[in-house]
């Protein structure tokens, strides 16, 4: 049986706080999920949801309070696992006294590559991320977007099997975002596994085989983008014209969006027939009835709002 590229079981991270560290804040609570080999997996969630915490746990920057995780079958505490992963930190910052070429060469040295191979790969990566002409400029003179590109280059420099990117589109202009999307697609075509966190839901919809939505430290949904949005109840949109008095349709019109004589009204699938009858009875002209396809963004917002409405998932409690 093939092993998943990333397997996470009940991963939990608490941060102690307070003067004597007697209180704890749970950043991640019992996360269990897996990312299959060759899959592009999008990790979605609002700020402070636990996306970066999960990624930092996976790459060994922080240590779990409970739970385990494996990458390519190796425990995340096994240093040899790091040879097979590439990691782009959120808002990356690198040694600013180095040039891009020097930085990439420095990182390549940790992967036991020969001098010739290092040079080849550095040249290739700089070309791939569009920094060929800036290769000899010290990183202190780089813009945020350029640093993001260098970060991406160092993450994939050693041809890792699993690439973990924390907010790879952050700080990039539309051209840069497009280039990053292309690189992720190239990685997918090359059979690599990509896990990336993002706020930009359209990118996730476009790139991901599956997405996971994390809110308040808890995983709230995992699946293919079109499957996951299907989990939310569908709605129907009625477009109609109505020039009569508002009195007869007071209730419906107050829920509709008006553009001139035209109204857009969203109703639940079950209420469609009754609503159409009601509109017909007052002489409204029905122009169209369409099924509303929920977007990932709507699903995402639905989860975030539900989380805010309930008791907070991120618990702050004394020991």
């Amino acid at each position: 049986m093939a092993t998943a590229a990333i397997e996470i079981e009940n991963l939990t991270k608490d941060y102690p706080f307070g003067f004597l560290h007697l209180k704890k804040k749970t950043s991640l609570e019992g996360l269990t999920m897996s990312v299959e080999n060759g899959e592009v997996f999008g990790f979605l969630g609002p700020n402070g949801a636990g996306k970066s915490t999960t990624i930092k746990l996976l790459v060994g920057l922080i240590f779990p309070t409970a739970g385990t995780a494996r990458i390519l079958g190796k425990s995340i505490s096994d240093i040899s696992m790091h040879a097979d992963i590439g990691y782009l930190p959120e808002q990356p910052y690198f040694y600013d006294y180095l040039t891009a070429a020097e930085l990439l060469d420095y990182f390549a040295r940790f992967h036991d590559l020969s001098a010739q191979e290092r040079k080849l790969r550095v040249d290739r990566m700089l070309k791939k991320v569009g920094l060929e002409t800036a290769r000899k400029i010290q990183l202190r003179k780089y813009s945020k977007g350029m640093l993001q590109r260098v970060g991406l280059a160092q993450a994939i420099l050693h041809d890792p099997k699993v690439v973990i990117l924390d907010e790879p589109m952050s700080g990039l202009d539309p051209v840069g975002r497009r280039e990053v999307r292309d690189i992720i697609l190239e990685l997918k075509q090359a059979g690599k596994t990509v896990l990336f966190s993002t706020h930009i839901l359209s990118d996730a919809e476009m790139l991901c085989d599956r997405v996971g939505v994390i809110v308040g430290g808890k995983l709230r949904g995992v699946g293919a983008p079109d499957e996951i949005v299907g989990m939310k109840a569908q709605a129907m949109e009625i477009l109609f014209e109505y020039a009569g008095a508002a009195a007869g349709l007071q209730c419906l019109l107050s829920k509709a969006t008006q553009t001139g004589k035209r109204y857009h009204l969203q109703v639940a699938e079950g209420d469609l027939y009754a609503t159409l009858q009601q509109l017909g009875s007052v002489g409204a002209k029905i122009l169209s009835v369409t099924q509303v396809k929920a977007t990932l963004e709507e699903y995402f917002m639905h989860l975030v709002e539900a989380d805010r409405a309930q008791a907070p998932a991120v618990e702050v409690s004394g020991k």
Partner: protein
Amino acid sequence: MSRVGVVALNTFREAVRDRVLYNLVFFALVMIAASILVGQVSIGIEEMVIVTLGLSAISVIGLLIAVFIGVGLVSKEMDKRTLYALLAKPVRRWEFLLGKFGGLVLTLTVNTLAMAAGLFLALKLVKSSADILEASVLVAVYFIVLKLALVVALALLFSCFTTPLLSILYTAGLYIAGLFVTEMRNYQSETMSRALQTLLRWLSYLLPNFENFDVMAAAAHGRAIPRALIAQNTAYAAAYCAVLLGAAAAIFTRRNLK
């Protein structure tokens, strides 16, 4: 090259690019000025004055670099998050620490050797009848390097768990305390309780002994420095650094990088 070596060379490169070695210009100016002035104000002891002045300057400049750069070795990398991408590579945290230590010690060694070369040049310029043993001056320079390595290890240890400001205070405090360990060990007082005297004695053994590295007087007066002391100081510095680096690694390998 080993991963420790890769980190060490990059640390050295950082020091060079951040113009740390510019202090050599300042040292050169001090030595040139001293050579000219000393010749006029001292009669017959020019070399002694030059050696004392030169070794003091080498020591003070080295200490300033060791403390101020040493305390930032780890904390700066954590604050700027330059460490994140690095630790995702197949490099262990202790290898990173050892590399940072090695890099700064390499920087200080190059710096100290360059200053020592300046000192010997100044000695050549001031020709007098005083009998200076060049070997003793060289040993004094070697002891300064050992002392600086110990200071870097202290600074690195504090850098792993506290702020740079507190690290400076702790490192400087321990350095100053380490200059008085013999007095601490032999201190007798009617008013001091026996328990406190015992505690002081134990502390004097625990604190880094920086007194043993000071052979400036012997070097200035042309006295030979016993080989046993060279071996003892080398072993002491190596063992003490190993303990400090071990403690630093134990702390740092458990530390969450937020």
